[in-house]
């Protein structure tokens, strides 16, 4: 039983990793963007599981909250807004898809060459360190010669992953944290400015004129072809 459960993380990695790779291939290969978005959602969830396997529970939760809960909804709304299904059938790939595949394959071979066998193989990580919180405080220490000096004394204790992250994030990464809020502010203003240009309500809801035009044109072409 123990032999069975001890291999379980690796088994989970194999299954989830395979699903993630398959889903990401389908993201790229699907013609309909709605299907792409749903497979992207599957990939995100699989990646969250992979985070959990590497002792990053808080990041996994953020991944599900922000990526699966927020970004996917945004993607789906935009797909619905644009409603690509009503567009005429077009080529999915660009003209130089062979070159793109070659570049991807070359990059993968490059990466695989960097991960040489035997270099990063044994999992050496100490998971306790990822859940340890160190607090420092000044403490008066009596030296050997009788003088009293203040010294920084660290005290470590094992806590949860999110508590450890909070301690590092709000102590050592103060400036990036505030810059992140500034970034979010800029993104908010930018997206409102770019996104909020009024269109008439009828235009928003009905079939665009150009699609009707294109359908008309195709009909004419078909009639001409059939007529011959």
């Amino acid at each position: 039983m123990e032999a069975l459960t001890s291999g379980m993380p690796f088994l989970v990695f194999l299954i989830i990793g395979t699903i993630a790779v398959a889903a990401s291939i389908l993201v790229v290969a699907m013609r309909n963007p709605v299907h792409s978005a749903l497979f992207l959602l599957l990939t995100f969830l699989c990646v969250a599981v992979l985070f959990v396997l590497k002792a990053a529970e808080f990041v996994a939760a953020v991944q599900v909250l922000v990526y699966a809960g927020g970004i996917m909804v945004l993607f789906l709304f935009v797909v619905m807004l644009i409603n690509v299904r009503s567009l005429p059938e077009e080529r999915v790939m660009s003209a130089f898809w062979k070159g793109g595949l070659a570049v991807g394959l070359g990059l993968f071979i490059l990466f695989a060459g960097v991960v040489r066998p035997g270099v990063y193989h044994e999992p050496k990580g100490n998971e306790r360190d990822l859940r340890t919180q160190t607090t420092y405080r000044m403490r008066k220490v009596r030296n050997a010669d009788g003088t009293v000096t203040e010294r920084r004394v660290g005290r470590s204790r094992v806590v949860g992953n999110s508590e450890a992250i909070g301690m590092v994030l709000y102590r050592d990464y103060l400036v990036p944290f505030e810059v992140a809020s500034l970034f979010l502010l800029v993104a908010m203003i930018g997206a409102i400015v770019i996104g909020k240009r009024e269109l008439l309500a009828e235009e928003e809801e009905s079939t665009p004129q150009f699609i009707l035009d294109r359908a008309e044109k195709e009909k004419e072409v078909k009639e001409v072809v059939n007529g011959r």
Partner: protein
Amino acid sequence: MTYSFVPILLMILAAAILGAVFLGLNTIIGKKQRNPSKLAPYESGVPLLDESRKRVNVKFYQIAMLFILFDIEAAFLYPWAVIYRNATLTPAGISWFVFGEMLVFVLLLGIGYIYVWKKRAFDWT
């Protein structure tokens, strides 16, 4: 530590098996009849008002976009809330430091909130 997630795994498995069993039994045992009202989205006979694949309003996008940005704010609040109780136990300087940095963060996003409000992005009509 990863073992504390085994119940979740078991629950996912149970959900998948239960769904498969129900659907499987339905297709094996169930009576198959295909008529237009059976295939309609609302079998009870409510007539459809419109098709489902029409374009949605751009307002939905705006709300979703604002939701994401404030979602990030909430995600940053979690670890802060977890450490705040401990930070208040340590010397006074640290607790004010932790409080102050979150105050700056929330204020900066509050400016964005007011901007969005003034731009009437929350108004539906």
